[in-house]
């Protein structure tokens, strides 16, 4: 019987359109999780094609397949252990040399490869003509020209994948020639491996990796029986050829091989004038205008988020007040007990509806953000900021992690592992929570929108964001200087050419963020709202002062008073420890007990704009959510740093809250 499922792995460098291709192939039929035991995201999706199911696994984007990063290890282990039927290697045609580096390493592992020569249009615009059939002949595997962002060539790619999966196409094993000297060493090690059962590991690959001194492979081969001879040989090589650094030499050799290939397959036409990417780069990476442009772009993002979302937020508001009225009447009509009605209407629906009003904000924010990311602007932002970060003693990549934090601190902190230096990494982690995540931004946008309007609202948001970025800079400087002094780590970062974003990919990315938020909102937050309803209705539902919530808030009130907060606010801030967006639902439930109407109408009656601003500031700075604390603990591998992050941010928030409130009271 014919096999109906093909296992396909998608491999490629970062920024070559890999996730766009993945989204086009699988659409909404995808599952996002983590690689087992790892913090790297794992995406898997399905595609039905002529009665065949393609199970597509998106491998992490990598330049290489060494053992130095988690991503590279995951990618190569997957290919070795899971033995996918087909590996799609997506390659940037406009930057073929760099991309073939990974291709050569993939071909060392398997010859079941189909190459998607992507961005063929960008290559043409750069005057690069590629002889696809010759490239296919040299590498021994099918090559398909694609433009993933326009879904061009994708059908043919799928055809080739299916044909290869069913063995209708035969591939040749490509053997790279590393030159006489290296080949001799490889051959000797390979012959020593001959009598050893190396499981699914290709012997030549093991030999190359042993010569490259790959720590993982060394550990692995040590476990094989009778492998002592190999290590004696390696020891001999190391002692007699001290001047050889095989790892760098083999990397250089791979590029020599690539040069030979590209000389044959690439024809270059001289293109007059600068490319579009150069023209844009001349502006956005400008020495003087670079940073103002960066700020202007961020300003625009938040302005657009406000303007576009406010009618939708109003709609949700009205919808949910209609819904809660409707359900209340329904429950009254079936004579449900009053306590149940209260719990459902004032607890569950109140909490859920407040949170749901976030959805348009988060959706629009991430929609714009994903477009900027897809275009390729984010790496330019890191480039522009590196000068500033460098003078603070911080790495430019730290800034990328900080930008990421605007989405969520959890992946941003996980992203700090791109910093090779441990001390740099801890500094980046410690300052990361100072940058407000999507949830906090949502709360900030929501409350700012209640108290301030138009230009004023934009200025308030920008001032808060400037404070958060400055704090991150200042704290980073202090941590680096006094707590974790060390060397600068080298800044090396690839800057992809600009390209027009793919709408489908951007929408899927936005949907991913929103759906994660909704999942959290509908479970954790609703449960929490009910709990809050309980805490604020017992032991007494008559007297608000006589509830568990009030007891808690009152314990914290003396500190809150210094910032102009009463116990209701301190209670909300206390509960936001679990997840920052809960502060709003907590406020809704607490105030909902006293007065009718939505929070948006009620807050201006009980808070002054100064109190609102102080609340926003404190809320932005103090303690990240439980999830963030957990990740900090995991990434620093110490509770000490996790507690430190919590402690210093509470202190900082309190201090700034007191200063701003008291200074503000003097002047306003």
């Amino acid at each position: 019987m014919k096999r109906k499922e093909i296992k396909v792995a998608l491999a490629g460098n970062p920024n070559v359109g890999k996730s766009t291709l993945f989204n086009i192939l699988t659409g909404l039929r995808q599952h996002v999780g983590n690689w087992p035991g790892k913090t790297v995201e794992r995406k898997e999706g399905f595609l039905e094609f002529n009665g065949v199911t393609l199970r597509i696994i998106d491998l992490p984007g990598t330049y290489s397949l060494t053992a130095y990063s988690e991503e590279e290890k995951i990618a190569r282990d997957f290919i070795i252990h899971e033995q996918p039927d087909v590996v799609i290697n997506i390659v940037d045609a406009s930057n073929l040399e760099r991309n073939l580096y990974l291709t050569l390493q993939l071909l060392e592992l398997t010859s079941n490869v189909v190459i998607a020569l992507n961005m063929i249009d960008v290559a043409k615009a750069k005057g690069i003509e590629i002889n696809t059939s010759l490239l296919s002949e040299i590498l021994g595997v099918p090559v398909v020209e694609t433009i993933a962002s326009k879904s061009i060539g994708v059908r043919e790619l799928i055809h080739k994948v299916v044909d290869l999966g069913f063995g209708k196409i035969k591939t040749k094993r490509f053997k790279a020639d590393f030159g006489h000297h290296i080949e001799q060493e490889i051959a000797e090690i390979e012959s020593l491996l001959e009598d050893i059962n190396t499981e699914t590991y290709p012997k030549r690959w093991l030999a190359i990796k042993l010569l490259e001194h790959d720590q993982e492979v060394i550990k692995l081969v040590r476990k094989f029986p009778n492998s002592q001879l190999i290590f004696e040989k390696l020891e001999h090589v190391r002692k007699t050829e001290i001047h050889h650094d095989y790892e760098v030499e083999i990397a250089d050799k791979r590029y020599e091989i690539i040069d030979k290939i590209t000389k044959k397959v690439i024809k270059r036409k001289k293109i007059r004038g600068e490319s579009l990417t150069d023209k844009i780069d001349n502006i956005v990476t400008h020495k003087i205008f670079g940073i103002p442009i960066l700020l202007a772009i961020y300003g625009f993002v938040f302005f657009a988020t406000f303007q576009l979302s406010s009618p939708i937020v109003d709609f949700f508001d009205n919808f949910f007040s209609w819904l809660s009225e409707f359900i209340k009447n329904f429950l009254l009509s079936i004579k449900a007990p009053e306590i149940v009605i209260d719990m459902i209407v004032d607890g569950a629906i109140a909490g859920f509806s407040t949170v749901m009003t976030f959805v348009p904000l988060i959706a629009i924010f991430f929609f714009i953000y994903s477009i900027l990311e897809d275009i390729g602007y984010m790496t330019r932002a890191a480039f522009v900021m590196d000068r500033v970060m460098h003078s603070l003693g911080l790495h430019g990549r730290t800034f990328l992690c900080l930008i990421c934090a605007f989405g969520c601190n959890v992946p941003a902190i996980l992203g700090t592992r791109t910093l090779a230096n441990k001390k740099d990494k801890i500094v980046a982690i410690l300052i990361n929570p100072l940058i407000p995540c999507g949830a906090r931004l949502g709360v900030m946008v929501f409350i700012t929108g209640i108290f301030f309007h138009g230009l004023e609202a934009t200025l308030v948001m920008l001032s808060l964001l400037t404070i958060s970025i400055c704090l991150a800079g200042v704290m980073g400087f202090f941590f680096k200087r006094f707590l974790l002094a060390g060397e600068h780590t080298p800044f090396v970062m690839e800057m992809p050419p600009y390209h027009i974003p793919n709408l489908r990919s951007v929408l899927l990315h936005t949907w991913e963020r929103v759906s994660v938020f909704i999942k959290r909102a509908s479970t954790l937050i609703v449960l929490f709202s009910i709990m809050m309803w309980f805490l604020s209705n017992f032991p007494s539902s008559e007297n608000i002062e006589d509830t568990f919530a009030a007891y808690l808030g009152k314990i914290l009130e003396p500190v809150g008073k210094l910032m102009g907060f009463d116990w209701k606010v301190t209670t909300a801030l206390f509960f936001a420890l679990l997840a920052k967006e809960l502060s709003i639902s907590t406020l809704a439930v607490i105030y909902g007990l006293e007065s009718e109407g939505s929070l948006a109408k009620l807050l201006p009656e009980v808070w002054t704009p100064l109190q609102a601003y102080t609340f926003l500031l404190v809320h932005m700075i103090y303690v990240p959510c439980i999830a963030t604390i957990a990740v900090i603990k995991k990434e620093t591998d110490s509770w000490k740093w996790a507690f430190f992050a919590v402690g210093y941010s509470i202190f900082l928030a309190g201090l700034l809250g007191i200063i701003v409130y008291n200074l503000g009271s003097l002047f306003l």
Partner: protein
Amino acid sequence: MSSVVPLAMLSEGEEGKIVSINAGFGLSRRLAELGFNPGTRIKVLRCGNGPILVMIRDGRVALGRGVAMKIFVEREK
């Protein structure tokens, strides 16, 4: 006239050929993987006080000044 200088010494628009990379083990490997190999042509697209932006093998790479001081290039007219 040709002379070997650190990459950071080239000015905007200047081109050169990599002669050697004089960096520690980790950085050398990373640069080699990205295609910074002896003999490769390199062009400086942007430089200033901060990091420099170079064009190498059809790709753009940003390098910190410290890194750019460790890559030695032969200047070309």
